[in-house]
């Protein structure tokens, strides 16, 4: 059809428009119509969901405090080339602005930001601003150093210069257990502050373990469901779907009831005299609790895709392998198992994506050692109020999840996702 010689040049519609042109117009119209149908939801998701998330993630590089509270100081500090002590002019600008900031009570907003960098800064700033009120004229450099000789320390000025710009990478550095030394170099955090590397590592290995456990437990029952007669398998399917449909909090609560030291499982063990009353096992409020509860909650996400793949494997493959002399084990290993890989992959990625961003279950049953990355994001958002760091951790988590989602989409396709 692309060849000009065979294109239906001569054909016209009844209105005298060439057929090709008319067809193109009709197709364009139906494309627009399809887009118009999608547009309302697309806009809705953009406004209520995507924009808020982007807005939140920008906080990980956003650094507005300095420029809000001491705008001119920020400006002159950014122009100053750094190294050693700044000239008198910068001291003067800063002293004037600090007095003003003290008066309209905006100084606190900046000091809490500076305190994330160096815990002594709040005290230093307030002390300086208070005393400056009694100083009416320069030289400001001498006056400020007299108030506190920290102002004669080049490292403090390096810190001030570093925090002046409107954007910062410090939160990302912190999220990777790095920091900026007083000399302005990127160095590892002191040992006792290195928690995020460990936390990412823990989140990943726990998610992998949970995915592995789900595969291990899900495979046999998916196989059973796929090979039993439909009537029986439909009945057993309810046992998979019922937990899937039950409220997440309900399932987490039930695991607390079952696993706690005064709970049902410990009671049974004591009653069966496997344990003495004083030897009850601590199974919840630690990693074990998180792993057991999350495996239970995520297991249906593994069973359902596995089942739908296994259902399509023709049983005659296995019979053919057997009749050609393969043992049961060989036939399973060489014929059946390779055919289940798509289901295993789909379920595995799905469980991993869900596990890596899980919040509720670790928060309720994780104790101190079972917390995942999501719990720290919540902590920084709600309690420590270090929003920048929370947003940086969130951006890293989101990047990981989106990469997994991309992989899932590439391998399986979202359109093939099914529930129940």
């Amino acid at each position, binding site marked *: 059809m692309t060849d000009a010689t065979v294109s239906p040049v001569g054909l016209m519609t009844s209105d005298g428009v060439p057929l090709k042109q008319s067809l193109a117009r009709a197709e364009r119209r139906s494309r627009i119509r*399809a887009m118009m149908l999608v547009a309302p*939801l697309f806009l809705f998701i953009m406004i*209520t969901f995507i924009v808020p998330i982007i807005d939140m993630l920008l906080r990980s590089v956003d650094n507005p405090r300095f420029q809000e509270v001491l705008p001119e100081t920020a400006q002159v500090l950014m122009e100053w080339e750094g190294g050693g002590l700044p000239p008198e002019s910068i001291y003067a600008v800063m002293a004037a602005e600090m007095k003003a900031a003290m008066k309209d009570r905006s100084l606190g907003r900046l000091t809490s930001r500076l305190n994330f960098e160096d815990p002594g800064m709040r005290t230093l700033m307030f002390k300086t601003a208070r005393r400056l009120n009694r100083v009416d004229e320069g030289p400001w450099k001498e006056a400020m150093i007299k108030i506190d000789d920290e102002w004669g320390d080049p490292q403090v000025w390096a810190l001030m210069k570093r925090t002046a710009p409107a954007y910062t990478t410090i939160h990302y550095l912190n999220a990777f257990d790095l920091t900026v030394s007083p000399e302005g170099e990127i160095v590892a955090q002191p040992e006792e502050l290195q928690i995020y590397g460990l936390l990412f590592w823990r989140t990943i290995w726990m998610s992998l373990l949970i995915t592995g456990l789900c595969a291990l437990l899900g495979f046999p029952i998916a196989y059973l469901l796929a090979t039993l007669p439909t009537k029986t398998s439909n009945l057993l399917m309810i046992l998979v779907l*019922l937990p899937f449909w039950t*409220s997440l909090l309900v399932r*987490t609560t039930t695991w607390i009831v079952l696993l706690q030291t005064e709970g049902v499982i410990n009671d049974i063990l004591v009653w069966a005299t496997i344990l003495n009353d004083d030897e009850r096992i601590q199974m919840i409020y630690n990693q074990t609790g998180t792993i057991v509860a999350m495996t239970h909650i995520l297991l249906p996400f593994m069973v359902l895709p596995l089942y739908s793949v296994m259902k399509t494997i023709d049983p005659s493959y296995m019979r053919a392998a057997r009749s050609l002399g393969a043992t049961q084990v060989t036939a399973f290993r060489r014929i059946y198992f390779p055919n289940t890989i798509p289901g295993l992959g789909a379920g595995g990625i799905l469980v991993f994506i869900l596990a890596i961003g899980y919040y509720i279950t670790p928060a309720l049953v994780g104790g101190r050692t079972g917390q995942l990355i999501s719990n720290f994001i919540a902590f920084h958002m709600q309690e420590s109020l270090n929003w920048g760091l929370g947003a940086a951790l969130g951006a890293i988590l989101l990047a990981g999840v989106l990469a997994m989602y991309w992989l899932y989409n590439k391998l399986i396709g*979202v359109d093939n996702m099914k529930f129940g």
Partner: protein
Amino acid sequence: MSLPPYASPLERAWYYSFRTACALIFLFLISPILVIIPLSFNAEPYFTFTEGMIALDAEAYSIRWYQDIVGNEQWIHSMENSIIVGIASTILATVLGTTAALGLSRPNMPYKGLAMGVLISPMIVPLIITAAGMFFFYSKVGLAQTYLGLILAHTALGTPFVVITVTATLTGFDQSLIRASQSLGATPTRTFFKVIMPLILPGVISGALFAFVTSFDEVVVVLFLAGFEQRTIPRQMWAGIREQISPTILAVATVLITISIMLLTTVELLRRRSDRLRGIKS
């Protein structure tokens, strides 16, 4: 897969141990739910079976925790909130999601992959990121701690389920049915209600149920976005589990399990009907 009569002893042993393993896994899946229902009738404020309960003594059972829910203003209020937010967001999500699914299923929808990716994203993004993002943004525009904000948030979270289930029902939908209807003189509206709607209805309803369950079960966004006035059932349970753990929680859990059994039955029946309508044998 029943055991053939010529099976060797080894195969026999494998067969029975496999069955036992499966039974244990099913027990793992279902036992929490089976344990919690009798415990919610415990007469004592403990989270474990008392001797009287094991001896099936009627005295050891009571419905006091259920009376607790009915008598507690906070539980009633949060139940109302859950239902209001759930129903409002379900209606919004179903209308928006079904329309979008209709567009996505048209053969000449451009940028289909990209659009699908964006529309599905609320299901993929970890809830804590969604919640934090909405918290800051909705606070800025004055929607935090309002019913409207919560409803919009839950609508966003519920739409992917509607889009997915309705798109699934539309696969294999014969587009020529639409042309047939239009050539017989039906307006697009009439075509939609008389031809398309009856065929996709099972998908729409199960999508709506998924959206409702998502909202009804959601707690992370509620934690960030809702004020005291907008407390929902999951929020109330969260507080209960964290602060003042009492068997009332188990009674609420049992009520929720009953609701989910009813919803599950509905979805299952709808799925079968949809398969039958589209000529797929289950």
